[in-house]
């Protein structure tokens, strides 16, 4: 009896140690790969989970565009507690994807980060409500319960409210949304934030029909702020200008391919990560395409920084309290020269 117990414990200990070794070595093998094949290692920090929102990078990686430019790209997924600005500033990642308004907030507080390319040309943010609540125009939000993810994602809604004469503190209740759409489905809130390419799709997948839902589009309301952009830190770009231009060239190519065939792009992303259904990835790819290449947009100009849109984002940010002082829009904070170089 005793010896059996001892045997069991020895086996367990060996098992634990090997698992430990596996845990550690998975960390070290990643390191080793950085020096293989003469490729330069670059890490990209996503703002959110691996999904079609970032399909351009996955497509470029799968098609070997980065390798062709001599780059070994590692894509780091985001998460609720991962903040791309901080990851890039810390040096955990070289390049980050974030929302322009959020980046501006960091820049205004002295973080040495530079906006270099604008992937999404339009805002993907919606306020969605069930048709039964009768919210059709922004003015209908008076007295309602509205949810946002906060953490910087609430300013487009603030702008929307103010532009329609509503006071965000007095005329309605704003609550936090937990990254699911359950609060809306459960009728705990009247209107919820949703991205066209993600949460809106989830609502449809949960059985609601388009006719059951009302949506307020930030672009229509004239309060759009720019979202997914690419940024780097001042220190890193100083040493890696050429590398970064090559990264941009490959990424733009990837985005162009992805927008040309969103279904294939959705499949590519699905192959990387199966947590979300293939249908949802393809739905998302199609919606993201509309933001990257809006109707009438020249596909060759993917990543183009429209300074007017940047200015509007900055102005709205200042007006509604995200920024406390006027944003500095010099080349120290917004610099299109790498993009220009890459698309030459």
């Amino acid at each position: 009896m005793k010896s059996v117990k001892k045997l069991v414990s020895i086996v367990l200990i060996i098992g634990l140690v090997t698992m430990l070794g596996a845990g550690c070595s998975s960390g070290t093998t990643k390191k080793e790969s950085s020096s293989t094949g003469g490729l330069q290692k670059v890490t990209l920090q996503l703002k959110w989970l691996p999904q079609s929102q970032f399909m351009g990078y996955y497509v470029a990686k799968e098609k070997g565009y980065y390798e062709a430019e001599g780059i070994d790209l590692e894509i780091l997924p985001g998460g609720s507690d991962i903040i791309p600005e901080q990851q890039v500033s810390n040096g955990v990642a070289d390049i980050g994807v974030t929302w322009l308004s959020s980046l501006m907030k960091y820049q205004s507080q002295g973080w040495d980060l530079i906006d270099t390319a604008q992937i999404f040309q339009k805002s993907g943010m919606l306020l969605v409500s069930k048709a039964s609540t009768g919210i059709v125009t922004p003015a209908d939000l008076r007295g309602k319960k509205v949810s946002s993810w906060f953490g910087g994602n609430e300013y487009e809604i603030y702008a929307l409210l103010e532009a329609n004469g509503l006071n965000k503190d007095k005329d309605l209740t704003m609550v936090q949304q937990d990254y699911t759409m359950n609060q809306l489905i459960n009728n705990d809130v009247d209107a919820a934030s949703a991205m066209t390419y993600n949460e809106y799709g989830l609502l449809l997948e949960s059985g609601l029909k388009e006719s059951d839902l009302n949506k307020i589009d930030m672009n229509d309301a004239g309060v759009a702020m720019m979202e997914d952009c690419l940024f780097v830190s001042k220190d890193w770009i100083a040493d890696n200008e050429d590398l970064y231009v090559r990264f941009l060239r490959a990424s733009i190519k990837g985005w162009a391919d992805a927008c040309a065939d969103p279904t294939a792009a959705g499949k590519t992303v699905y192959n990387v990560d199966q947590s979300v259904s293939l249908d949802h990835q393809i739905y998302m790819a199609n919606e993201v395409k509309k933001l990257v290449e809006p109707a009438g947009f020249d596909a060759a100009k993917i990543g183009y920084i429209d300074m007017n849109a940047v200015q509007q984002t900055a102005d709205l940010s200042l007006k509604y309290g995200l920024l406390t002082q006027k944003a500095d829009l010099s080349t120290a904070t917004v610099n299109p020269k790498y993009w220009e170089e890459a698309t030459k």
Partner: protein
Amino acid sequence: MKEKMLNIIWPLGFGIAILLLWQVGFLHMIFGLKPYQLPVPTAIAITLSNNLGKALTDCVVTISGALIGMAFGSLIGFMIAAIATFFPKWGYGGMIVVSAFNAIPLVALSSIMNLWFSTGMSQKIGVVTVVCMAAMSMNAYKGLNSLKPFSVDLMHTVAASEWTIFTKLRLPNCLPNVFTALKINIATAIMAAMISEYFASSTSGLGFAIKDSLRKGEMAMGWSYIVVASLAGVILYGIIILVERNAIKWHASQK
């Protein structure tokens, strides 16, 4: 008396030394941090004093949720331990079930409670209640049952009922364990209350404020809330220790 002074002076001195090193940038130097990544103490203090009103309101929200949840959780945990004491054969299973609750990750628990409760406060209380049950039931069970030899026999010689044995013997005997559990629970409760607020459908509370500030890169603001949370935690911990000292003077751990 001298002992007591030392107990305060040493940690205080150490804390001040660290704060000074932090302020003059020594910590930033060794860890390679920039001031905007980790704000200096004076910046945190100034932010806090400018924002004291809101910080205290948030603190009240979080702490009251934590305390109510802790009270529920500890009570339930204790009752389970008591039931397991009266019905040892069947009751112990309840303890195992309760301890299994402890293995549910907080993030998942917060999301589940979000579904069950619609307000932030009730969700928070729900989360804290669940996480506080196990420590209390385990400790209380130990205290209710690890009696000195012959003490039960003594009760039996005077034909005491199980209930008398419980109130006269088991209850006082488990007090030290109950306090141990409370000390564990106070830290867990505040932590759990803050994490639940990361996901709660409300915009008040320290957890929400910390998350919101840190995501926006308002580091000094975020850290000022962390300071409030830490202070509240230490004060509550101190209160429990004080109550413990007076409630169980007879116990060896107090000498």
